């Protein structure tokens, strides 16, 4: 980058620690020659400096404000090995095709962070810096965690491999549905939806994020009727079934009480919302680990800080934090449904959840290589505005290890909930069968669905009802590194 901003650290101690205000770069938060250590935490921020603020100084400021700096020189720095504690901005690149924005690469010494605490990590990395005045906007795009740090977390309590073994379900995506309407159903009516959907062929049903314990349905009623439905469906199919019982509540004590009730009723899975916060997530993850419980995470609220491209935190970072914190299921987007997400970017989130090792993959938004050090894998959940007619696209985009959730696409079926579930399951199995036989499902998908619909009336009805529904809006959160377009 431009050298006119004098981005050199002042090494003469007398000058460096003279009372007053220095540039962050001069204070030692910029080192263009720094080679990140394997043990460093790395972060890349998308920074939009205010007019006239030099990008390198902006990067140094981000490094400073997310580590040791304050706005002025303090002599107490000299009581510490302060150079080691300073984060180092080491690279600044303009964002391709977006004038005024810069990717700033920052390295943090491992010693800056408490082991096993996402709260501590986030307090450091996103604590102050996003409100910093010299920046118009700032977004945390990606992070790399050293293996030593990863190993201080216990990760998902169950993980994809064990979840499948526990459920005895292999070789295909799992199917789910969120009970609708979200609000207003009584416990008894709610359980009816659960029973019909599970018996019809789904593996899971789900509470919605804001179903907790309202006057129309107290949580115990929901749990009792829900588990009656789950067990009836198991007896009707011979398959393991589950309902994500949302235990989100106002206090940790109440969450534990609800979790324990779910366990005592024999549920295989509980659910929490992202809004309960990092510490609560890590606590309930520990509980899930001790109680052989699959922990389903609904990412309620994330859109407030993940969606806008210029400010906030990318969902891929949230996904990484959640894998460390330890959840088993994570809503990670559908690409083809009603909610935000372009296909490549969403695949990037899935890779963060599911791979043992992420390679750098700029088109999918992965800026860093990440070794997960054997941490269990998170099962991504695709939910929101998807239906049986998109089965080929979903399977092609996401493969087998995903929960495909068709809420409206099950419950809104013209022949009923049971038929809606069957339509989804038949569409899924027919598509997996065809893919395994070597057919090109991305191309032949509609034909494969039509063939199955010939002998499966519920599927025929589903295709008739929703066959053409798509949500074609431009995504806001897209990759900045798109491979050269190839004529198709």
């Amino acid at each position: 980058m431009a050298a006119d901003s004098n981005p050199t650290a002042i090494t003469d101690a007398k000058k460096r620690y003279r009372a007053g205000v220095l540039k962050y770069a001069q204070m030692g938060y910029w080192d263009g020659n720094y080679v990140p250590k394997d043990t460093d935490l790395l972060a890349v921020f998308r920074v939009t400096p205010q007019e006239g603020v030099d990008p390198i100084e902006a990067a140094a400021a981000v490094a400073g404000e997310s580590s040791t700096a304050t706005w002025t020189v303090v002599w107490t720095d000299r009581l510490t090995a302060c150079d080691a504690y300073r984060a180092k901005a080491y690279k600044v690149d303009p964002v391709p095709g977006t004038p005024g924005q810069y990717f700033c690469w920052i390295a943090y010494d491992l010693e800056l962070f408490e082991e096993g605490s996402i709260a501590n990590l986030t307090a450091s990395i996103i604590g102050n810096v996003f409100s910093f005045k010299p920046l118009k906007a700032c977004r945390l795009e990606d992070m790399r965690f050293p293996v030593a740090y990863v190993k201080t977390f216990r990760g998902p309590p169950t993980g994809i491999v064990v979840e499948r073994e526990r459920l005895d379900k292999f070789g295909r995506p799992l199917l789910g549905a969120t009970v609708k309407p979200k609000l207003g159903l009584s416990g008894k009516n709610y359980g009816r939806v659960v029973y019909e959907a599970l018996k019809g062929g789904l593996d899971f049903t789900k509470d919605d994020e804001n179903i907790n314990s309202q006057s129309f349905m107290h949580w115990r009623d929901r749990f009792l009727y829900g588990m009656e439905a789950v067990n009836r469906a198991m007896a009707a199919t011979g398959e393991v079934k589950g309902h994500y019982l949302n235990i989100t509540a106002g206090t940790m004590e109440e969450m534990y009480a609800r979790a324990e009730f779910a366990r005592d009723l024999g549920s295989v899975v509980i659910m929490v919302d992202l809004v309960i916060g990092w510490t609560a997530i890590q606590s309930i993850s520990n509980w899930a680990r001790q109680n052989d419980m699959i922990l389903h995470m609904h990412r309620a609220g994330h859109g407030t800080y993940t969606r806008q491209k210029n400010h906030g935190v990318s969902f891929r970072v949230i996904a990484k934090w959640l894998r460390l914190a330890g959840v088993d299921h994570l809503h990670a987007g559908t690409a083809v449904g009603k909610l935000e997400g372009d296909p490549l970017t969403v695949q990037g989130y899935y890779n963060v959840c599911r791979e043992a090792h992420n390679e750098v993959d700029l088109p999918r938004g992965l800026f860093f290589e990440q070794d997960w050090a054997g941490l269990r894998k998170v099962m991504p959940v695709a939910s929101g505005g998807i239906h049986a007619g998109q089965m080929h696209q979903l399977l092609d985009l996401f493969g087998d290890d995903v929960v495909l959730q068709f809420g409206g696409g099950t419950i809104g079926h013209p022949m009923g909930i049971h038929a809606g579930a069957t339509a989804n399951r038949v569409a899924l199995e027919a598509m997996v069968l065809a893919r395994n036989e070597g057919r090109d499902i991305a191309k032949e998908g509609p034909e494969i669905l039509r063939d199955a619909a010939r002998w499966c009336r519920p599927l025929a009805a589903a295709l008739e009802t929703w066959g053409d529904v798509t949500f074609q809006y431009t995504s806001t959160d897209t990759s900045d590194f798109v491979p050269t377009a190839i004529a198709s």
Partner: protein
Amino acid sequence: MRVTQGAFSFLPDLTDEQIARQVAYCLDKGWAVSVEFTDDIHPRNTYWEMWGQPMFDLRDPAGVMVEIRACRDANPNAYIRVNGFDSSRFWEAVRHSFIVQRPKYEPGFALERTKGKGRTTHYQIRPYATERPEGERYTNGKR
């Protein structure tokens, strides 16, 4: 009723040609393929009887088809499933599993409820077939 365990239970029963193509899919991925059978179809019955060891290093489905046929001949009334096992690092688990034979008549499951504290209910699921001893299930009373 129809037990819907396995990847393809909502489809019409697979033909041998279809089964061979699924086996080929597993072999092409480098997975070991195994054949298992049981007459206890409880959803928590993890350990079905192994029809021989998992078959490692096969290139072609014909070898698996031989074992499936032999298993059917020996256990005409049992459930039989085929598994694809992936031994690669961070999986080391079954990756595919589907039923290749089921009894003609599937009597289903009893659901038993036990009253617990308060309104709590505990559930037990029991396959009706397991009321009879092993080997005499799904056989119409004949051994």
